[in-house]
């Protein structure tokens, strides 16, 4: 019985991947987003040098009611997705725990990202019991000097203390969100990337995620290779060495979550990542800004205040914006970039077949699943032919 359940899960993955694949290829809305980023406000405790987000949309705040409206809507979706609460610094908002609680009631998986400046002991206990599935704290260096140079004096001590508070609180309560660290790869901290593993292990972190720096000036895509934090040729060599060490560690111990091949970072900083290797699927993620504008990455799809999220995803502007994103020439390799293995049709089908071959289920269920997969393929084939004419 359990085996057939497993098979159904595999089929569900297959279905989702196909939906993303054909959404992108045919430019039709066949899938719901996997990641929904909600930026509560752009206010932040720090003004980090690589991040210009504080200066944009200063006076906007998305209201609690609006966030709840989104939750009401998406809890009805028959889809596997995750909401990520970001900012600015989300814990500057007083209603953030109310938002978490509401999501918990609706049964929505929510993660949050913070810089750790405000997480003291009592706050940590509150976060642990709030029903989040993951809490990420940014840590940009293994040494105090590095992190403080990038952020602000005293930031390192606050961030490490926050992580410690969180992991202690989790130990106390026995259950709670996964405590993870997000590290931005940049020129200043390239030598310390591997050391961050040891530090975060010591602090009781459960998961570590690396992502390359974006130097945001006036918009997110405008990452400039001349910017201050962009690694030079020598730094890139050091990065390669670090990546090898990190990969070795990951093979033995796990702990680090890669969203893509880590050698892409090296290629990315050299400016050699080609469009074929880097498949940013605009249907996979959506971002709601503090002004209520919904967008994936490029231009706005529509405003949350005028229509529902589902409607926003289906506007003319949305399709135009996605088409522009397809032509994007600047890979960013951010955390929203994570794509659900929907790179190639052959890959999707092959992985299903491999899983079915390996499973212990009886032949009848296997046959049933395979014929269902076949029907799905035929469905998409007809659809693609319709799109042609």
């Amino acid at each position, binding site marked *: 019985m359990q085996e057939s359940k497993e098979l159904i899960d595999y089929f569900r993955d297959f279905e989702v991947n196909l939906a993303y694949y054909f959404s992108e290829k045919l430019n039709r809305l066949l899938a719901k987003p996997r990641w929904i980023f909600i930026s509560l406000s752009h206010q932040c405790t720090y003004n980090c040098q690589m991040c210009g987000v504080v200066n944009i949309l200063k006076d906007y705040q998305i209201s609690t009611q609006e966030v709840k409206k989104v939750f009401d809507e998406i809890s009805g979706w028959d889809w596997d997705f995750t909401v990520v609460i970001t900012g600015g610094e989300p814990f500057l908002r007083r209603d953030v725990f109310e938002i978490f609680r509401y999501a918990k009631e609706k049964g929505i998986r929510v993660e949050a990202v913070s810089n750790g400046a405000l997480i003291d002991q009592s706050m940590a206990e509150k976060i642990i019991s709030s029903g989040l599935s993951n809490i990420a704290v940014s840590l940009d260096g293994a040494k105090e000097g590095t992190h403080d140079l990038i952020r602000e004096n005293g930031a390192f001590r606050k961030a490490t203390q926050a992580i410690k508070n969180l992991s202690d609180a989790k130990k106390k309560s026995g259950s709670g969100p996964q405590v993870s660290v997000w590290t931005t790869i940049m020129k200043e901290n390239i030598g310390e990337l591997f050391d961050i593993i040891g530090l975060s292990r010591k602090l009781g972190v459960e998961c570590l995620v690396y992502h390359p720096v974006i130097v945001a000036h006036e918009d997110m895509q405008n990452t400039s290779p001349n910017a201050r934090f962009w690694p030079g040729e020598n730094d890139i060599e050091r990065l390669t060495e670090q990546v090898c060490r990190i990969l070795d560690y990951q093979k033995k111990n796990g702990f680090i979550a890669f969203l893509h091949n880590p050698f892409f970072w090296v290629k990315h900083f050299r400016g050699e990542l080609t469009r074929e290797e880097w498949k940013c699927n605009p249907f996979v993620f959506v971002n709601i800004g503090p002004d209520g504008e919904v967008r994936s990455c490029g231009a706005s799809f529509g405003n949350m205040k005028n229509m529902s999220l589902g409607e926003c995803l289906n506007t003319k502007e949305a399709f135009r914006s996605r088409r*522009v994103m397809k032509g994007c020439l600047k890979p960013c390799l951010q955390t929203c970039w994570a794509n659900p293995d929907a790179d190639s049709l052959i890959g999707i089908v092959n992985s299903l077949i491999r899983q079915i071959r390996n499973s212990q289920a009886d032949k009848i269920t296997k046959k049933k699943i395979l014929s269902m997969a076949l029907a799905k393929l035929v469905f998409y084939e007809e659809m693609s032919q319709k799109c042609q004419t």
Partner: protein
Amino acid sequence: MPNLKEVIISITNRCNLRCRMCDIPCGEIDELPTSRWKDVIKDACRLGAQTVVFSGGEPLLREDIYELIFFTKENGLSACVTSNGVLIDDRVAGRLYDSGVNVVNVSVEGTKGTHDFLRGEGGFDKAIAALKELKKHKIESTVASTVSKYNYADLPYLLKLAGDNGATTVRLQPFNVIFLRDLRRRKEFLISKAEIAEVKESLRNFIELSQKHKISTNPLNYLYKIPEYLSGKEFFMQQCGALWYSCPINPNGDVFPCWVEAKNRLVGNVGEQSLYGIWLSKKRLKIIKNIMKKGCKGCLMSCYDEAFGEGYSGARVFGKIKKIKRFTDGKKIINKVRQFLKGAVIRFRLRYKFYSSYGGSWQVILKRKLCGMFGKVASGRKRIQDKSADFSSEIACLKKKIEREIHLL
């Protein structure tokens, strides 16, 4: 940035001759495989190059040379081979003809005595035989010669020889020190001040005869500079086109800004990166600008004669006539247009920036609007249609795969 015009691939360091004016070690460098060179040629095509020159060492020592020439021609570029002629017999000339090579340069240094002294016994007869074979197979051949103290008197003879054996051009290039590792031997090839007049006389004869035999040579003011250069004077070329238009590549894939400035000035390696990336990289631009600023030692390598020719109005007119002649060939016009369009597309892609809608100045908003329009053009209906046609066959194949899987159960 100007487009790439010419890729000079030193495809191997192996050589079957040991010439007096060249002591580059043979075969000490690893060679890239055929597939990598094909990628390089493809990239050169993308970058809008017109010519690929295969030099060496002796390029005909590589078994895949014919395949590479064929591939170059297939990509719409012209291919040129620089050889010493030793290996060119009936069979090789036939294979060269089949591969579609445009021009074969055969090195001849002068009379039999001079040539054999500089390049080894028996080299002269083989080179002449090679020229004859090339003529027989209707391949355009040119005679290339390195002018030095030993052979300046033989220059007029070279023209006669070229005319008799069906070569269309005689290309001269003064001796250059980059082929010598032992710099003390440099003096051996340079001329004394007293000899300058003799070289000038020889060159005057050479130019007169070239008009008589109707054989083209290097631009005249390039030739006029040879005597002074050979006496040891250094030229400071400020506007050397070679840095901008040509791309020298070593057998192991190292790309240099130029042969003379090769030392410690590696731009990249095509074994590891694509030529496309290297050529458009900031690093290359930086290196070139650095050289331009400092000024190079100066040389009279043959890749420079295009730049020299530009200063000379007669040569310029001659070049224009040549160009017009070239343009009357329909295929070449199409090629030119294609290359131009390719270059335009590349430039467009480089300039194209992707703006999001985070609030900004009106310029940003205007740019964003324009990008939106371009996005529409760039991925219009036609492209989607092409792709969907692609995956209908893919889906059919995968359907069969699943059906087979069901049968196996």
